[in-house]
């Protein structure tokens, strides 16, 4: 089984931008580009994901600006992750510093520390879990979908939006492109957007907690922290309160107590370190030294119940983002069409060279419809055996002679026909009857030019295309056939050569 692809968010956005760019090309340019893509990508992968990435890579080779954009997007997204991490570090450092502020007059309240460094992250973790629950699971309990949506809406990863303003201009522009693509296809990229934000949230939380741990360890090593615990929620019996708390802390310490015994507060420690602000008093050195003994428990609690779950959540969110990226990549609008086009090029049937047109001379701007010549027709030529008897032609056009040329007759007979025409008496014109349904060939034009040379200028030559509906008797030609003849003969630029459509009835003298 082929290894699955792992596209990044930048790949997904890069592909969407490349397909957008593709849509702006002209058909011809796109076709040419597809051919180049096929050459660059080799055979198109049968796996759609690989094919998509191969298409993107090949497209970027041809359009380097797309590659630069993808690189900028990668950099910008990395920059955003760094900014979120820094925000986490800053938040974790300041919060922990504030929590562990100890000027010797009070105590560092373990309850407050655990509430902020374990309780609050756990609450957010519940929000994360709600946000990642599959739709089917959410639908099982009324209200859960709403809580899930709320958890997504309040995700700290959304800080990325304001933080992007801190990025350099190029990176900001790249992020704008990401946001634009997300907005444009918000349904399609919904899952990817959700997991990206959730991943950013986990990243921020991990750095927040890591910074908290580092600050805590630093303070533990370099200062004399005095922990205590204090709460208003009390049973009224100090020993009972201590016992309840001891049960809680022992349960919390269960995962590590086998490895680090002192990280589980003893009942004595709990009893000794409770303090009431109402009861002041100075401590002996021994008592003061005991107050620091909470730190291993606090450290392990933050590590086990806050940082580790966050790391797991980060891994989960990264994996889910990867899957969402893969799904979004495959569903990129326009990708299917782009891949189909490239695949279609597997079979090519079209010409590889452009068609060369005929360099015909200009069409003469002259009358093409001919009236019968003033002196009638001296001769009629039946070209290529038009199915009409000679007698019929004589009677229709009042010509003395009917000659035959073209068709099955040998070319060598044509000079004799031309000579005969030249020797025909009078000023009468020459009528050439042709098959309208056949195109005017160059051999006919050669013949007409030979006739013109022999007849000299000004003797009319009239070409009469005729139809033959049944193949045996002549009729008026079809207008489209006549048009072809008129257009072609105009190219001879002979002012005394015309095309007629008049087909007179045969009349006996």
């Amino acid at each position, binding site marked *: 089984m082929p290894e699955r692809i792992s596209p990044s968010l930048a790949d997904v956005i890069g592909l969407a931008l490349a397909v957008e760019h593709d849509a702006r090309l002209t058909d011809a340019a796109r076709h040419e580009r597809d051919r180049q893509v096929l050459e660059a990508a080799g055979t198109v992968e049968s796996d759609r994901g690989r094919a998509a990435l191969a298409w993107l890579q090949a497209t970027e080779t041809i359009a380097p600006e797309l590659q630069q954009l993808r690189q900028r997007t990668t950099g910008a997204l990395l920059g955003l992750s760094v900014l979120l991490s820094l925000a986490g570090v800053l938040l974790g450092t300041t919060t922990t510093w504030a929590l562990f502020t100890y000027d010797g007059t009070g105590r560092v309240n373990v309850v407050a520390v655990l509430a902020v460094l374990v309780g609050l992250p756990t609450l957010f973790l519940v929000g994360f879990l709600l946000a990642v629950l599959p739709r089917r699971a959410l639908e099982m309990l009324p*209200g859960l979908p*709403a809580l899930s949506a709320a958890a997504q*809406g309040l995700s700290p990863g959304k800080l990325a939006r304001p933080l992007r303003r801190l990025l350099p201009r190029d990176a900001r522009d790249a992020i704008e492109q990401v946001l634009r693509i997300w907005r444009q296809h918000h349904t399609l*990229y919904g899952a990817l957007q959700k997991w990206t934000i959730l991943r950013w949230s986990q990243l921020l939380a991990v750095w927040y907690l890591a910074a908290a741990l580092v600050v805590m360890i630093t303070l533990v090593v370099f200062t004399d922290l005095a922990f205590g615990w204090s709460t208003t929620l009390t049973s009224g019996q100090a020993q009972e309160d201590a016992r309840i708390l001891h049960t809680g802390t022992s349960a919390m310490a269960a995962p590590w107590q086998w490895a680090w015994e002192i990280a589980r507060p003893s009942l004595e420690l709990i009893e000794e370190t409770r303090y009431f602000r109402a009861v002041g008093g100075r401590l002996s050195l021994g008592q003061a030294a005991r107050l620091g003994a909470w730190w291993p428990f606090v450290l392990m609690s933050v590590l086990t119940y806050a940082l580790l779950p966050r790391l797991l959540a980060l891994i989960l969110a990264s994996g889910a983002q990867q899957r969402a990226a893969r799904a979004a990549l495959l569903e990129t609008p326009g990708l299917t069409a782009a891949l189909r086009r490239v695949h279609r090029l597997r079979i090519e*049937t*079209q*010409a590889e060279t452009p068609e060369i047109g005929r360099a015909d001379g200009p069409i003469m701007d002259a009358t093409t419809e001919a009236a019968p010549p003033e002196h009638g027709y001296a001769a009629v030529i039946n070209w290529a*055996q038009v199915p009409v008897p000679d007698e019929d032609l004589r009677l229709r056009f009042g010509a003395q002679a009917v000659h035959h040329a073209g068709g099955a007759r040998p070319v060598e007979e044509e000079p004799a026909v031309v000579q005969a025409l030249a020797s025909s008496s009078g000023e009468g014109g020459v009528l050439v009857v042709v098959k309208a349904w056949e195109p005017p060939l160059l051999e006919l034009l050669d013949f007409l030019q030979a006739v013109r040379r022999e007849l000299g200028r000004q003797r009319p030559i009239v070409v009469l295309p005729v139809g033959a509906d049944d193949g045996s008797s002549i009729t008026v030609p079809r207008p489209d056939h006549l048009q072809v003849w008129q*257009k072609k003969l105009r190219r001879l630029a002979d002012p005394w050569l015309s095309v007629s459509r008049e087909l007179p009835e045969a009349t006996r003298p």
Partner: protein
Amino acid sequence: MSVPKFAVVGHPNKGKSSLVATLARDPSVGIGPEPGTTVCARPYPMRLNGEVMYVLVDTPGFQRARAALDWMRRHEADAGSRAQVVARFIAEHAGEERFQDECELLRPIMEGAGIIYVVDGAAPYGPEYDAEMEILRWTGRPSLALINPIGQPRFVESWQAALRQFFSVVRVLDVMQARFDQQIELLRLFGHLVDDWRGRLDEAVAALLDDRRRQREDAAAAMAEMIGAALTHVETKDIGHDEDPQPHISPLEQRYRGRLRQLERQARAEVESIYGYTDLDRQESEFDLLEMDLLARETWLAFGLKRRDLVAIGAAGGAVAGGVIDVSLLGASFLAGSIVGGVIGGALGWIGSDKLGEVKVLHQPLGGKRLRYGPTKNLQFPFVLLGRALLHHRMVAIRTHAQRGRLELGSGTVQELPDTVKRQLAVHFDRIRRAPPATERHSTAVVLLGQLIASLMEPDESSSS
């Protein structure tokens, strides 16, 4: 194995270029009523993964066949040397304007191409064709005659009688309307001209058949994607809390309808592109949406929150606050604090969502009203879309690249679908409607619909009506 090559030759304006355009699926082939549109021999290689499987060569028509034959007869020594005489004719007249067309059309034949001689079965046979058929016989190359009726095929019989004098294989095919199976049949026939060519042509035919199947499947997928998008499409408009929605309703509806039409047009362009048509001029009618009121109103809030989210958050917050009281009473309140707190918090969330919508931060409202138009619930609508898409597909699939006019969609109708198919389709449409867009469920439903549509296209394959 040599590459099969076929020169399409004949009188001018008898459909040579149309045949090439149809078989090569090439819209760039020059086709016109004026004779002599084709000036030079132009090859159309069929490549499969880059390898040439066969080559069609479009050629100019004979212009001075009698003069050419006259020259050849004058240089003929005996019947056995006729092919050499033709070759000599080409060699001696190459570059001459007088026999440019004859040289162009005879050259590929003398280089080894088979001959496909095209005539018009709608026009009567005439003796002027004899000279060109005689020249082709002199070449000694394998040949086939094709009667292409450009209009009513009234003279097919007289043509068959004449052509059989010169060609052993004579077929009738309207190249402008040639169905895909007829095109394939013709290619197979080409393979019978020379035994050595059969294997390569069979391979090419198999690839073309496979490609045709893919075209059908791709077209069906494009239709299914269009229907999937149309069935789930929603247009929304966010307006201020106190803004009158009335002026926004009509533009919203127009946008909705416009988007559905755009989806249909995009799918049609996609189907046309699958069959190798770009910029096809289409004459089409717009569809009716069948239902008018698809408008819904809801409240929107910033950060993507909805009213129910605020209620849930309020309820949860209230329950936590109430829970603190419960804890402080060490359970003596029997969770009354949590319950009451939850109810109060939920109620505050409900009321607060309205109030929040009125709040502005940096001049941006935090909420307001959302007008939604769509998705359509009409059960007939997807059937109408599918019917139109199938009709369009059939018109495109039976069209040949020799046809240059507009694609007229108004006149066609699709076959009534059997009830069993309609029920299957209804199930698929329902699945698409139920699956949220851009989810795997939705994609799967669309893919399955595409497969069903592809199976519906099968009977259309050989239908030309």
